[in-house]
């Protein structure tokens, strides 16, 4: 194992998959000559050439659709959105064309495409650049959605996504590109299956269900709670769809209390679906109502203090965990 950044991990995943399969290509705004707006594609143009690392004009709908068309005839495109906030311009392609094709064609055309890029609120970017899109996309049958929180998960999930024969969205955590973590050496194949959560920290008093940018938040809060003798278990979903119900249930069966901390908004958010499934399947295991910590149900404001208030934060999560523990 060695320590690399989340950004490097994604870069390695791209390079390895481009190397492995000539049908894989990377396309998006600034991915080639600029090396990616977040430098995820650093060095790929030099290594793989302009046929496979392709800069596009600012036309998300156009190049997302181009990727889908190429996937219909056998290529395996990786389409980068500079941020998933911009994927909304391509919503029709991502929601109407990519996931519907397999059903509409009677199973003749599957779409092996990866859409990737940063997702979720970052820091003071204002409402248009702060969308967490996971609940929007996870609600669409035919799409798969994963949300890596660590360099290792980022590399393993992206590689798996590229090899998946369905449309997969890899929602990278915008604030975590420079975060570091331990990853297997480059010569060791790292594939992490979609739909497998990981317990990032064992605990016995309450389960914190989290993903992407809320994972480091949950880990910080868990460390603070430890000092108050509350032992929190951290379940990192890693994939929103498929959803690893079993890992969620297993943890709650152990702790009997749960808080879901999500990047998206409360109304029809990821946590709402999890709550439904938990009460439906393991109602008797709960010793307290499940609480959710999410964004406030408002567009994200620019002002730093207000933004901090609107986003899920340590104070809110701490309070929620204490509440489910009646502490």
């Amino acid at each position: 194992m060695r320590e690399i950044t989340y950004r490097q991990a994604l870069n390695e995943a791209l390079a390895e998959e481009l190397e492995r399969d000539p049908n894989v290509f990377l396309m998006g705004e600034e991915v080639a000559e600029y090396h990616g707006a977040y430098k995820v594609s650093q060095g790929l143009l030099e290594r793989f050439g302009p046929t496979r690392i392709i800069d596009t004009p600012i036309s998300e709908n156009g190049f997302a659709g181009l990727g889908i068309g190429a996937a219909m005839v056998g290529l395996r495109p990786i389409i980068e959105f500079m941020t998933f906030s911009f994927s909304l311009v391509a919503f029709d392609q991502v929601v109407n064309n990519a996931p519907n094709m397999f059903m509409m064609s009677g199973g003749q055309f599957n779409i092996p495409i990866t859409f990737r890029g940063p997702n979720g609120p970052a820091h003071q970017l204002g409402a248009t650049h702060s969308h967490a899109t996971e609940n929007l996309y996870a609600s669409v049958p035919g799409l798969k959605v994963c949300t890596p929180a660590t360099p290792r998960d980022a590399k393993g999930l992206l590689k798996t996504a590229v090899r998946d024969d369905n449309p997969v969205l890899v929602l990278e955590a915008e604030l975590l590109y420079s975060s570091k973590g331990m990853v297997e050496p480059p010569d060791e194949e790292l594939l992490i299956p979609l739909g497998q959560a990981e317990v990032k920290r064992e605990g016995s008093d309450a389960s914190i269900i989290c993903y992407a940018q809320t994972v480091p938040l949950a880990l910080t809060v868990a460390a603070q709670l430890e000092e108050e003798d509350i032992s929190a278990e951290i379940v990192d979903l890693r994939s929103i769809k498929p959803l690893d119900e079993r890992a969620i249930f297993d943890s709650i069966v152990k702790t009997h209390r749960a808080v879901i901390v999500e990047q998206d908004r409360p109304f029809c958010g990821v946590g709402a679906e999890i709550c439904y499934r938990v009460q439906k399947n393991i109602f008797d295991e709960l010793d307290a109502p499940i609480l959710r910590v999410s964004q406030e149900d408002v567009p994200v404001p620019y002002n730093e203090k207000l933004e901090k208030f609107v986003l899920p934060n340590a104070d809110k999560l701490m309070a929620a965990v204490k509440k489910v523990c009646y502490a």
Partner: protein
Amino acid sequence: MQRPEQRDEVEMLALMLLIRRFEERASQQYQAQKIGGFCHLYIGQEAVVTGAVAAVRNDDYIITAYRDHAHALARGTSADACMAELFGRATGCSLGLGGSMHFFDRKNHLYGGHAIVGAHVPLAAGMAFASKYRGEDRVTLCFFGDGAINQGSFHEALNLIALYKLPVVLICENNLFAMGTSVKRSTSLKQIVDRAEGYDIPGEIVDGMNFREVRDKLSEIVGSIRKDPHPAFIEIRTYRYRGHSMSDPASYRTKEELEKYRLDDPITRLRAQLTREGKLTNEQFDQLDKKAKETVIASVKFAESSPELPVEDVYKYVYVDGAVETERPGPARAEQQRREGAPAPSKEGA
């Protein structure tokens, strides 16, 4: 004159007749409520797609919008599979899962059948991108209506196609109306073909009621693209005799306008050309028409007697590897476990 690489003209006339008779029968079956959803007929426009397929290879890619029955028939999808699709049967070209607007036929290189106006033009760009990426000399034919040219996806795709020099023929089937809105009321240009100029794509206007003109123009363009990949745009002026869809009486246009176009009917025109040149007798024509009628009548019988997919099959067509994450109706897991005595929750949907 017909070139060796072009398909036989009498055979193409038979195809036009098949399309016309198929659409007439579809209309009748729709009125009899055997066909659900929306249904858009191609009657009047037959020379466009037949002229196009007469000029290309079978492995060239074809993609179109929702008025797609004719494109499937022209590609070689059987009338049986087309009619069965309209009937929603498992023997349909999309297993009855797509319907009138979503005909697909992988074997015959028909890539849909797309019902969001303009949204398939980027897909065409991708298909052509793949041909160029692999160094193939395949050409993509992308059909769309005059309504599509004002969509953002169309404009984005044209820019990408021109920028990457992709081997696509953009074929605008200008039937003068986007639903009930005439081109004059929807488009700021004097002529649609001028859209191409804005993207530095060569464009031409073709008479869509004249099979030979469509075919020969396509032959010329496709031949040039095969030598050196590039895009081209043709505005094919045509006319649909029926309304936009089955529910449209087309009250936004005059009887006189419709009559004018009917007198210029593409089937009558090709028939006259062939008869004049001694390549077709009246008896032969009647024979072709009789065969077309018989084929579509048989297709209705085939569709009626075909099975539907069982309801549980819906879960098979969500993910190609069968990984289904669908919230299904049924008892809660705990209850199910009590019944089945299963120890732990499984990973499948609840």
